[in-house]
């Protein structure tokens, strides 16, 4: 199983960015290994039902399926020709930078106890993103799921958690989630968006340069209207109710300052709440490699190069912007890698199409970001008994005591005093919530490894050549 063969390029992640990078580099003659945790390529956006489920129309759960089919066909052709190795079920936990090359350390899934390594001259980090969810009373009840999680379970396993769902939070992801759940048979009792999409009009010049994104939004809007889904903007979920299982949510209107308007609370029976407040990039591997961040994103130059020689990054890891932007960034990264490995600069004419897509969509998502921000005063609704750190079960009251009683003024001190962020997920889920409740900046945590690693794997000799020898 070991990938002893040395490669020109290792791409981490087989979503839109990773596949595009692998294709561009392989088209230009590079030998590429693409490592991904899933059993099939596609990432979260193009997640497909498991093969055994025999889906004859997977496109019913997807937008722009034809684009994926063509990407996937090109990937398969490269794999069959031996130019790309697509290594599935590999959970990458660390990328080690050696003098002239890199060793990618992975665990073989789903057990994730056996190690595997790939060595390469260059690395593209296409590690994607995950959903941000801010806490509210009741958010730990079974039946409350992230919006993206509900979509992932639907796309991959063809399942719904219940029959009557509320979709809530903020951001454009909520639209396909609501449309998908409804198409699959769920009743959407309410669609609750805390932002006011009308304020997108302030960004009209950016919007008109992205007609495809506007059309996509309009399509989803029409799908919601066709299914008579009640949409409430400038509303928020205040509380989830239930004993052992979600039974209802209370929603309320927001005033212009983002505070709950008294007297507007309304209880909606439901057995599913799909909730999300935007997305965060996966930056662990980049940080462990000492790549500089720009805010929460991996910082890259025009060629998608990080500031660590030999390391490129593309897609959501460099800023949340969806599948089309991810593909453009991946293509630029792959072309850049292929040229730079030969000691040349990439041909500007070859880059230009992807570059103009990148410019347009980065501007579009910058506008989206300003409009779909969580309500300014969300933390005020988080009661003291609300669990904020789900893994360590740290409540808002404990976090406030650490700040008000013990003087904690930053996320790290709050963590040391309360254990918030010290559990299994290493703060990936709770960091924005803890920071908001504590009233301190949501610093990007540095994690030595991108996922839990068994001690016996860590205890193996650190020299990658010995690792390889032991598996040959």
């Amino acid at each position, binding site marked *: 199983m070991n990938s002893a063969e040395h490669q020109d390029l290792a791409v981490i992640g087989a979503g839109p960015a990773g596949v595009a990078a692998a294709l561009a580099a392989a088209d230009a003659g590079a030998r590429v290994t693409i490592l991904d*945790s899933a059993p099939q390529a596609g990432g*979260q956006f193009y997640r497909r*039902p*498991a*093969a*055994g*489920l*025999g*889906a*004859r*129309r*997977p496109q*019913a*759960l997807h937008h722009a399926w034809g684009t994926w089919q063509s990407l996937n066909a090109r990937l398969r052709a490269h794999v069959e020709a031996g130019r790309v190795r697509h290594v599935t079920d590999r959970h990458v936990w660390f990328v080690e930078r050696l003098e002239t090359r890199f060793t990618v350390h992975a665990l073989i*899934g*789903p057990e994730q106890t056996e190690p595997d390594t790939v060595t390469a001259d260059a690395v593209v980090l296409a590690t994607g993103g*995950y*959903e941000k969810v801010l806490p509210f009373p009741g958010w*730990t*009840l*079974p*039946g*409350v*799921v*992230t919006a*993206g*999680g*509900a*979509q*992932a*379970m*639907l796309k*991959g*396993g*063809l*399942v*719904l*958690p*219940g*029959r009557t769902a509320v979709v809530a939070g903020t951001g454009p992801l909520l639209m396909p989630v609501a449309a998908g759940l409804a*198409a*699959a*048979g769920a009743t959407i009792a309410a669609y609750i968006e805390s932002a006011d999409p009308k304020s997108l009009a302030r960004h009209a010049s950016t919007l008109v340069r992205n007609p495809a994104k506007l059309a996509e939004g309009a399509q989803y809007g029409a799908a919601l209207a066709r299914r008579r889904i009640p949409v409430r903007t400038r509303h928020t979920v205040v509380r989830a109710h239930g004993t*052992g*299982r979600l039974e209802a949510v209370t929603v309320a209107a927001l005033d212009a300052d983002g505070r709950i308007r008294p007297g507007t609370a309304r209880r909606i029976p439901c057995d599913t709440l799909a909730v999300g407040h935007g997305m965060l990039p996966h930056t662990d591997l980049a940080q462990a490699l000492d790549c500089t961040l720009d805010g929460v994103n991996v910082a890259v130059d025009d060629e998608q190069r990080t500031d660590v020689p030999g390391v490129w990054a593309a897609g959501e890891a460099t800023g949340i912007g969806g599948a089309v932007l991810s593909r453009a960034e991946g293509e630029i990264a792959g072309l850049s890698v292929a040229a730079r490995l030969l000691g040349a600069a990439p041909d500007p004419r070859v880059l230009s199409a992807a570059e103009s897509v990148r410019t347009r969509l980065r501007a579009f998502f910058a506008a989206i970001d300003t409009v779909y921000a969580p309500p300014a005063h969300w933390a005020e609704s988080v009661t003291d008994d609300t*669990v904020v750190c*789900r*893994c*360590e*079960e740290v409540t808002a009251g404990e976090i406030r005591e650490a700040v008000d009683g013990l003087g904690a003024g930053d996320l790290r001190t709050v963590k040391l005093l309360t254990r918030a962020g010290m*559990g*299994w*997920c290493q703060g*990936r*889920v709770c960091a924005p919530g803890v920071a908001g409740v504590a009233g301190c900046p949501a610093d990007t945590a540095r994690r030595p490894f991108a996922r839990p690693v068994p001690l016996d794997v860590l205890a193996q000799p650190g020299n990658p050549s010995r690792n390889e020898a032991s598996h040959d």
Partner: protein
Amino acid sequence: MSDRRTPLDLVRAEPGPAYTATFDGREIQVLPGQTVAAALWSAGVTSWRTTRRTGEPRGVFCGIGVCFDCLVTVNGRPNQRACLVPAEPGDAITTQEGTGHDELR
């Protein structure tokens, strides 16, 4: 449920033959390729863990392997992420209480 559209209808799924696993001793039907979490949702189960501090029920939250809320015991092995681990024929899936290692104390 028969009067309602299902996710399987939507994609015109023709799954391979279902197989049997158990959840806390009760037989459940699993479609090939489904994860433990998907199999449990199909069986109408949404919680399969109790937390170690307050004993609260938990199930799927993020659905993509990030949050670790869906930890479960499969064939005696605790702390498996139900959203990532495929369900296999004959699997004994059991509710995980606390750390899942309590019997070792």
